[in-house]
C-alpha cells in the first residue's frame, strides 16, 4: 500500500503540497486529477523518492520513503515502475536497450532480459521495434515504450505521469486500453496522474482530486461523476468558471 501522510512540500515560497493525505489500496488504480500546477506530478515523485517532503511522510509498503538510506530507496524503487509524461526514453539507446536497462540493473541473465523485453514490447503492441531509436518513434509509440520499460520490471506498483497528454484521442484510447490491460495481466497497483477525464473514467477504480495542495474529494468513478462539490464539478465538466 502507498500512503501520503500530511505531506507538505514547497519550492521557495510557493507551497505546492499543503497537507496531502491519501491512501492507495493494493490492486486498485487510483487516478489523481487536478488543475495544471497543483502538484500532481510532485506528489507522484515523492513516492519514488525523487522529491522529499518538507514535512509528513510518504509510506510505501510500510516504509517511510524519506527516511530510507540509499540501499533502502533502491529496494523500494525496484518494486515501482514509473511512466514519465514525455516517456523520458534514453536517446542514445535503442527501444530494446531502453526496456532492458532496468532489468540489467537487477542483474538478470541476458536470456531472461531478452524474453522480458520481447514480452513487454508485445504487450504494448510494439513487437519488431527493438532496434529503432527513440527519435524514430511517434509520441504515442514513445509512451508505449515507456510503459513497456515499466512493466518489464514486473513491479508491484506503476505510476503514470500524464500518460495521455499531447496525444490524439485515438492514441489516448490506445494508452488507456494498455493501462487497463497492464492491470489485468499483471495485477499491479496503479497511480495515474492526469487531467484527461475520459482517461480517468476509463482506467480508474477511484479518483482523487488534488486542489490547493490537498485532496478535495476522493471516491469511486460513479461518486465523482455525481459529486455536488462545485470545484470538482467545474473540473470534471471542464467549465471555465
Amino acid at each position, binding site marked *: 500500500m502507498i500512503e501520503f501522510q500530511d505531506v507538505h512540500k514547497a519550492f521557495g515560497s510557493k507551497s505546492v503540497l499543503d497537507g496531502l493525505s491519501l491512501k492507495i489500496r493494493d490492486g486498485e488504480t487510483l487516478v489523481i486529477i487536478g488543475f495544471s500546477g497543483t502538484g500532481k506530478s510532485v506528489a507522484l*515523485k515523492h513516492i*519514488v*523518492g*525523487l522529491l522529499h517532503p518538507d514535512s509528513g511522510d510518504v509510506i510505501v509498503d510500510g516504509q517511510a520513503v524519506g527516511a530510507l538510506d*540509499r540501499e533502502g530507496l*533502491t529496494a523500494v*524503487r*525496484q518494486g*515501482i*515502475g*514509473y511512466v*514519465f*509524461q*514525455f516517456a*523520458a*526514453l*534514453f*536517446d542514445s539507446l535503442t527501444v530494446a536497450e531502453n526496456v532492458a*536497462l*532496468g532489468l540489467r*540493473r*537487477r*542483474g538478470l541473465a541476458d536470456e531472461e532480459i531478452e524474453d522480458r523485453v520481447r514480452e513487454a514490447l508485445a504487450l504494448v503492441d510494439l513487437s519488431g521495434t527493438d532496434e529503432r531509436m527513440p527519435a524514430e518513434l511517434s509520441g504515442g509509440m514513445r509512451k508505449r515504450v515507456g510503459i513497456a*520499460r515499466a512493466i518489464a*520490471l514486473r513491479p508491484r506498483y506503476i505510476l503514470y505521469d500524464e500518460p495521455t497528454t499531447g496525444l490524439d484521442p485515438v492514441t489516448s484510447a490506445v494508452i488507456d486500453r494498455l493501462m487497463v490491460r497492464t492491470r489485468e495481466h499483471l495485477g499491479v497497483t496503479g497511480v495515474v496522474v492526469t487531467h484527461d477525464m475520459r482517461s480517468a473514467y476509463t482506467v480508474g477504480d477511484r479518483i482523487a482530486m488534488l486542489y490547493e495542495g490537498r485532496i478535495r474529494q476522493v471516491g469511486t468513478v460513479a461518486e465523482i461523476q455525481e459529486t455536488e462539490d462545485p470545484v470538482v464539478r467545474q473540473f470534471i465538466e471542464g467549465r471555465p468558471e
Partner: protein
Amino acid sequence: MIEAIGRRAVSAIEAVGRVGHFLMDMVRALPDVRTWARPAIVQMRRIGVDSIPVTLFIAAFTGVVLALQASYTFTGTVPLYFVGTLVGKTMMLELGPVLAGLALAGRVGASMAAELGTMKVTEQVDALETLAYDPHAYLVVPRVLAGTVMFPMIIAFAIATGIVTGWLTSLVLLDLSTPDFLKGLKLFYRFKDTWFGLLKSSSFGFTITFVGCMVGLSTRGGAEGVGKSTTRAVVYSAVLILLLDAFWAVVLL
C-alpha cells in the same frame, strides 16, 4: 553594500559546498563497477578517439609556428639547433597540454554539459533513478574516468605531432638538419618534462569532464537552460585549466 558582499560570500561558500557534495557523490559511486564499467568504455572511445582529429590539427600548426618563431627569435644570437629545444620543451610542458585542454574544454566539456543538461530537463535522469540506478555511477563516473585516463593519451599524441611538424618545418623552411634539431631536442630534456605534461593533461581531463557533468546535471529550465549550462561549462573549464596550469607550475617546476 555590506549586505551585497555578504550575499556573494554566502553564494561562494554554497558553490564550494555543492562541488564538495558532487565530488563525494561521485566517490561514493566508484565501488558500483557493474554500473559504470560498460559506459566508461563507450566514453573512452567518444572522448579519446573522437577528439584526436581536432587535437592533432591544433598541435600540428602549433609545432609549425613554434619552429618559425624560435628561428625568428634566435637568428643571429643563439645557435639554431635551440629551435629543437624550444619546440620540444614548449610542446611538452605548456602548449601541448594547455592548447589541447582549451580546445577539448569546448569540444568535450560543452558536449557533456549539453547532453546531461538535456537528459536532466527531459527527465531522463529521473528515469534512471526510478530504474534504481545512481546517476553518478551511470553518468558521471564513466565520463570523469574516461577524461582523466584518455586526456594524457590524446595529448601525448598532440605533443608528438607538434614536435614532428616543428621538425619538418625546421627541415624544409629553416635549413636546419635533422641531427641539429634532435640535438636541440635532447639538450635540456628531462624525464620530468614528459610526466609533468601528462600529469597536467590528466588533471585537465578530470576538470573538464567533472565540470561538464556537474553543470549539466544542475541544468534547469528547457532549451535555454541547456544553452546556459553549455556556455557555463566551457567558461568554467577554461578558467580552471589556466588556474591549474599555474598551480602545477608553482608546485612542480
